[in-house]
């Protein structure tokens, strides 16, 4: 906007002061450059271009350095927030970091991670898919996509991403990363109660495990969850071999042996587990049951016939006593002629077998032991159904009856 009275030159746009007709710029004598040859001017322009290139180059270099530094600072803030479990704040910091270092895949990755944690799944998906498009084989990207799919309850997609992550490319320490991802996949599958799939993944994981007691113990617990007690026991044994003080491994091994009805081994491991962790009540209970099984099992090898008969009679009396007590608690009269419910069947069997349960009959008929122990199992099961959890001695009898074949072997 020119001042009052002045006007702009239509040719050069400069001010023509009030009262003047000609533009002072346009009518001024031509400068030095106007008198140069055209070719010379082109060469000058190229020279100027080179200078401009150099100056811009230095400016850009400094600019990039500053941007990188700023991006780095915001990234550090984001990392701190993420570690402090403040994913919203972390996401904003990573966003800012990305403004200064736009194509930084690490920042993008962390942002996606923060977004997944903050439950901004749609946004995280966009970032992750963009990263995946650029690096389709990236293990890290596939792992985050698996997390996101898991949060979205898209289980098949999550499993697919986990698998891709396991076999994907990891820039740093690929072996450890793959192991961690497979471990995570196994946990995920266990959470989803997908036992078969989980077991095959855990078996694959077992083959890749390094000599790490913690990992072996962890895998042992996973095998326990899929009820593969044999492999679980192997893993716990490996863990104990690597670190005899490994917490949980003694109890785990004991539990695995217990579940396999290997009560002798179970007693050994559980004994150690209770010594290491006296407050482990579960281990103590299992230890007690194992001990009782070993003490009362009439089917154990290398027992004299006398001892076998004694244990059978003791087991019968213990089960009968438990049944009577239970019936009494439930207000059922076992002497009555008319009885209903579970007690009726077992009572008729008791009445039939009871007169035969004595040392002379057992000595005469070794098969009677099996019949008596069948009745013991029936009595204990009836008592358990009617009165709930059994005391340890009765549980031991139930174990003996259930695992008769195993212990016999």
């Amino acid at each position, binding site marked *: 906007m020119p001042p009052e009275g002045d006007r702009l030159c239509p040719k050069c746009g400069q001010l023509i002061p009030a009262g003047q007709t000609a533009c002072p710029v346009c009518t001024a004598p031509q400068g030095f450059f106007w008198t140069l040859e055209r070719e010379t001017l082109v060469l000058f322009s190229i020279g100027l271009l080179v200078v401009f290139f150099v100056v811009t180059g230095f400016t850009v270099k400094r600019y990039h350095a500053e941007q990188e530094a700023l991006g780095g600072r915001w990234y550090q803030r984001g990392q701190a927030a993420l570690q402090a479990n403040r994913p919203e704040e972390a996401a904003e910091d990573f966003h*800012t970091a990305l403004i200064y270092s736009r194509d930084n895949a690490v920042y993008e990755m962390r942002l996606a991670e923060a977004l997944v944690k903050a439950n901004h799944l749609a946004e995280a998906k966009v970032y992750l898919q963009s990263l995946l498009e650029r690096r389709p084989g990236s293990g890290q990207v596939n792992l985050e996509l698996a997390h996101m799919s898991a949060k979205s309850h898209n289980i098949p997609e999550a499993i697919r991403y986990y698998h891709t992550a396991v076999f994907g490319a990891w820039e740093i320490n690929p072996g450890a990363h793959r192991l961690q991802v497979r471990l995570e996949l196994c946990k995920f599958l266990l959470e989803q109660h997908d036992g078969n799939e989980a077991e095959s993944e855990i078996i694959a994981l077992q083959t890749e495990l390094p000599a790490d007691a913690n990992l072996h113990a962890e895998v042992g617990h996973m095998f326990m969850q899929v009820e593969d007690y044999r492999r679980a026991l192997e893993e716990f044994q490996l863990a104990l071999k690597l670190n005899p003080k490994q917490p949980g491994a003694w109890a785990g091994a004991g539990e695995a042996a217990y579940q396999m009805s290997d009560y002798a081994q179970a007693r050994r491991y559980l004994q150690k587990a209770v010594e290491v962790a006296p407050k482990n009540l579960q281990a103590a209970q299992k230890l007690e049951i194992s001990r009782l099984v070993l003490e009362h099992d009439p089917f154990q090898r290398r027992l004299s016939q006398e001892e076998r008969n004694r244990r059978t009679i003791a087991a019968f009396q213990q089960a009968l006593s438990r049944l009577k007590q239970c019936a009494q608690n439930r207000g059922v009269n076992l002497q009555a002629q008319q009885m209903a419910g579970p007690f009726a069947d077992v009572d008729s069997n008791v009445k039939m077998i009871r007169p035969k349960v004595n040392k002379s009959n057992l000595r005469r008929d070794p098969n009677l032991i099996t019949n008596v122990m069948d009745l013991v199992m029936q009595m204990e099961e009836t008592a358990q159904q009617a009165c709930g959890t059994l005391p340890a001695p009765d549980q031991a009898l139930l174990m003996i009856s259930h695992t008769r074949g195993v212990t016999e072997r």
Partner: protein
Amino acid sequence: MTDPVPMDPDIPGPPGLPFPQKHWGRILNRVKKMRAPRIFLHEEGLFLLLAVIIGLFSGLAVVCFQIAIDWTRIKLLGSSLAPDPLRVILAPAIAGLAVAALVIFVFPRVRGSGVNQTKAAVYIYDGYIPFSTVIGKFLTCALAIGSGQSLGPEDPSLQIGAGIASALGRRLHLSREKVRLIAPVGAAAGLAAAFNAPISAVLFVIEEVIGKWSSAVLGAIVLSAVSSVTVLRLFLGEEPLFRVPPFHLVHPSELFSYAVLGVIGGFASLAFTRLVTYLRLRSKAMPKWTHYVQPAAAGLLIGVMGIWIPQVMGAGYGIIDQALHDQFTWKLLALLAIFKILATSLSFSSGTPGGMFAPALFVGAMLGGAVGGVEHIFFPHLGGTVGGFALVGMGVLFAGFLRVPMTSVFMVLELSGNYSIILPVMVSNTIAYLISLKYQPVPLFDLFSRQDGTDLPSMEEQRERATLLVEDAMRPPAEIVLRAEDTVADASRRVSATALEFFLVSHRSGDWTSVTKEELRRLIKEGKGSLPLARALSSPLLPWLHPDQPLDAALRQIGEWPLLPVIHRADFNNLQGVVSLADILAAYGAATDEENRSKSSALPPGQRAALRPD
């Protein structure tokens, strides 16, 4: 290379000057005498070389411009996405005062977006853009945009490029025609670097600045755009302006949502155009002293907005990027679009230099994202990404607000690098463009130029104007058409009954000649009555026309002839009509009347006032 002229010890320095200055004078004289090899055989070659040089200079200038904006932003507002409230209020206001002072006292020609200034240079000032405008644009825009004014850097980049081109063209003593053409070459270079999208830049300059596909400048424009983008990528990296998420059309029915986006975008473009032109007119009409504080006042208002919605400040590329990545709810996106329209209208109308491209992209992305978000709520099974909608939305505002339909489509394609987005883009952009065209007959940049008191050629009007054809002006064939085989006597007998004086003569060869009554009478007097007309007449062949030719062709060809034959393209003896100069002028007159009638009926009452120059 020829050797430079050897040193001439006789050339004196300016008399009476001390030694260093004398020495300098001698050097200058020798430089003047230097002769570089004659490498340019003709001006065309120089023009193309110059296009590359302009592209490189513009690319470098835009790199520095972008860095300057970013540095200013970090220094004034800080590096955080959510800056300190005090800074948010004060920075744009104080920077606004500085910008106003610079614009009023130092660089008076840097107001506005830059597109119209470049057009004015081409059509009014013979390609002249003072270099001070380049410097002024660089400084004031970096300060304004960096401080948070809601404007973009693309239009200023365009003008910076054009200014560099103009300066080089003039220094190199190009012809007046070439200097006029070189400003768009620089404009394309500047815009290409600003967008990092050469195709869109070339298309925009052709669509909005030049208005036609001229082979004379197309090569130069492409060369300069490619050169500038190469420089930009060399220094700032290959990455595009936005990180565009992957896109695919989930189901064809999703096109319906994109059509809705087109409708919303069309009306949003209308609202944006009306608001910005209205506020601009009002602010220009305010007392003169207010012009010193208008940018500061606009900055203050934007700062106040920025406390609650910091996203509306600045060019907003980062926010567009976030919208593309589905980081906002649809309600926030809609809110951002509304406030961005308001903030940009305030900034631009206050006279703060800066561009409208980035705000248009911003508003489009937010509207698109909002429509995408709503689609997710009501039609979750469609499952299209919000980013896809935001991307298409950018093109929608480009088509509806800036009124460059071709550029809008190619810009989205170029930014996304994904061809599958073409269908939604075409659907949305066409709808938005048609709505804007229907309710806003005069495009934005033409409104600005008329508000500024100039009447720059409207490229859209040129495109939309129906081309008059020969068939619009021709009359049915004359009653009497003579044949070249007729004798002069027969011909004279045939024409004697009519009052007409001029007759067309058809030849078997398909040629046409003419004869007048007077001429026939003369030939009979000379005793040539028995001769066929073909032999008796010596008049030259008549130029002929076809019905589908532009009427301009008739005007060029009619010369002194009273009539021209309009003939069938496949049968040259088949006369379809005749056309005279009076017919041509009558057709032009009727078309102009019709155009004026439709224009005045289409303009809303408030807009007529907006069109009046100051």
